């Protein structure tokens, strides 16, 4: 364990690791709130930024904040975002003070820049009243989330010391099969992100967009979604401890396998709660009467959950890739050293 790059202080009080957890943890509700803002189309409920109706963000009166629903959503989103911003700065500071790995410190800086960039994007989206910026704002959010979550991984004791509950022993770890597993994971992470981008195209429609493009994005979203479901199941089958994979790698595979079907169901439900049951379904599968309810609880929760679970999937997939890479180097380095 003499290779542990963190300072002795940090090892005893893993402040940075805890802060990374809190920050990434706070990002998830932030994404939910942002999702609600879009689902309820409340993005322009507060027309100014960084102020709220002329008030300083933190001084907006509580009763005004709570009295108008749209304003409640948007202002809450801004407040949580500001908190995540401060947490990220604290995290970065903790890294520079306690972590000897320069690249991790710099990644902390990247996180600060990412969160700030994301905040400014959100602000510009309001000031310019620009749907395209809303789209980009929605697409960068999961990236920032992934960046913060990767800091959780990098600051963990297991990562620093290269300890793992079930150190890979099989030769497969370094061989072709392992390379193949890694490749699948990377493709899956990329495909999840592609889905997030496609989804944001479906969510942020500008009035002049030609109806043709929406149809194209719907098909991309559906086809990639099906491929992703199959890919994740295949990956889950491959990433078993029995096949020489570390427990934490297998666990992430299982998480993906568990979440992805939920995400597919949420996706279908998102369609139905926004656009109703398709004719082929009511003609061939189940004759049931359903009326879409605009702004109804089902529409809001299901749609936003679909958005939030997507970013969760991305974070898990990124963490899986990181660990696969990390454990491969453990193996080869260990072999080289001993």
């Amino acid at each position, binding site marked *: 364990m003499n290779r542990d*790059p963190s300072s002795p202080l940090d090892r005893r009080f893993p402040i940075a690791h805890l802060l990374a957890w809190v920050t990434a943890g706070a990002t998830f509700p932030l994404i939910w709130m942002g999702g609600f803002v879009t689902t309820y*189309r*409340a*993005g*322009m*409920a507060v*027309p100014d930024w960084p102020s709220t*109706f002329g008030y300083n963000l933190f001084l907006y009166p509580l009763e*005004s904040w709570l*009295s*108008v629903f*749209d*304003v409640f959503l948007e202002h809450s989103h801004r407040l949580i975002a500001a908190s995540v911003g401060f947490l990220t700065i604290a995290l970065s500071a903790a890294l520079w003070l306690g972590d000897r*790995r320069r*690249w991790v410190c710099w990644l902390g800086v990247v996180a600060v820049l990412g969160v700030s960039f994301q905040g400014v994007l959100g602000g510009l989206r309001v000031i*310019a*009243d*620009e*749907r*395209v910026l809303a*789209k*980009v704002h929605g*697409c960068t959010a999961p*990236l920032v989330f992934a960046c913060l979550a*990767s800091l959780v991984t990098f600051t963990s004791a297991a990562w620093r010391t290269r300890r793992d509950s079930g150190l890979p022993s099989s030769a497969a770890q370094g061989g072709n099969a392992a390379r193949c597993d890694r490749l699948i994971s*990377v493709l899956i*992470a*990329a495909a999840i*992100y*592609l889905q*997030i*981008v496609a989804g944001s195209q479906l969510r942020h*429609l*500008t*009035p*002049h967009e*030609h*109806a043709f493009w*929406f149809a194209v994005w*719907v098909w991309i979203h559906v086809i990639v979604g099906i491929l992703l479901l199959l890919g994740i199941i295949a990956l889950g089958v491959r990433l078993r401890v029995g096949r020489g994979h570390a427990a934490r790698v297998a666990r992430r595979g299982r998480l993906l396998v568990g979440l992805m079907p939920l995400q597919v169901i949420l996706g279908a439900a998102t369609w139905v709660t926004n*656009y*109703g049951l*398709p*004719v082929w379904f*009511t003609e061939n599968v189940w*004759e*049931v*009467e359903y*009326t*879409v*309810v*605009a*702004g*109804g609880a089902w529409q809001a929760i299901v749609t936003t959950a679909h958005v939030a679970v997507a970013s969760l999937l991305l974070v898990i997939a990124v963490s899986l*890739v*990181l660990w696969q*890479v990390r454990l491969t*180097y453990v193996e080869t*380095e260990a072999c*080289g050293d001993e």
Partner: protein
Amino acid sequence: MALGSPFRSALRVALAVVLLAMGLVAASGCGRTPPIEFPLNLEGREPASVSPKQAAAIRQALTELFGTPNEPRVPDGVPLDLKRLAMAAGAVGGDAQGRQRGLYRRHCVTCHGIAGDGAGPAAAVLDPYPRDYRRGIFKYTSTRSGAKPIRKDLQRTLYRGVPGTAMPSFAHLPSEQAEALIDYVIYLAIRGETELYLLQLVVDEQSYLPPDMDRVMEEGVLPVVESWLLPERNQQEWVVTPPPRPEVDRPEVLAASIAKGRELYLAKDSQCVKCHGPEGDGNGEEKELYDDWNKPKKGVTPEQTAALARLFKLPLQRLRPRDFRKGVFQGGSGPADLYLRICVGIKGTPMPAAGPAPGVPGPLKPDEIWHVVDYVRSLAAGAPTPQ
């Protein structure tokens, strides 16, 4: 090889994903959205057949009369509330008190389009397509055939939604917002019909430019406005109120009514079977049915149809006569709703009015319509067909 290695590979992966994403976002049309304006109604016309000068003249006349999507205006004599229109029009927004602006763009535009052309960005994948208001035809009304809906009909649609289609229920909207949206729908409909008049005047009749605005008012706007006012003013004559439903509380009375309804349904006079089929499952001999919005897209031969497709925003879509056994009724499944559908028909579709109208007896008398309603409802409930 130091600790940098895993980091470097991870970085490479992350970088690739981010680049891919940015490329996708860029490809999907970065840059600012173009300013919002009403697109010209070129449905079914060769774009080249309207010269730029004609297009500009039509646009200008329409702007003079109806303003822009951000600043709606109505000519004198159009009974629409400008305050309500202002609330429904324009960019989405609100103030600290929760007063809303831009309701139409917030709630309707993704399906119905900025000009109410029914070809908003989400329209192409929906079946049926969202309504194109610009012909001033609405399907689910309580008014006699050929008449515009009354306000209450549009209210009902907005609150209830259209079951079995993408048209949502907006029951969550405060009533002042719903009223503003209804005003805006009527505004777009009047504007749309005026636009059709102008296209005919300027393009088909090649009238001198710019068009004489007094004539446009006289021949284009006022008749349309009049047609909206007519049923509201003469409800006696134009609006059907279902008469009290005969008592069917006892099972044998209901069964008798259903049996009578079935007889009337199958009778040649009523023609129902032609489209809905003897079993009421929508499998009549008439299979090639289209509504008024899709009929112009249909050529006589498949080649003609394919050639026509180019002139329309959305592809040809077939209309299915309702399968009663599903129990999904788009105009509402209550007995009074069904009475109205059968009595006045579904406007803009081949579904005819079967009830009496002033001067026309119609195939079904009011009490007969009630029997047919009972029969249709019995199919919807899955009851076995009486022999």
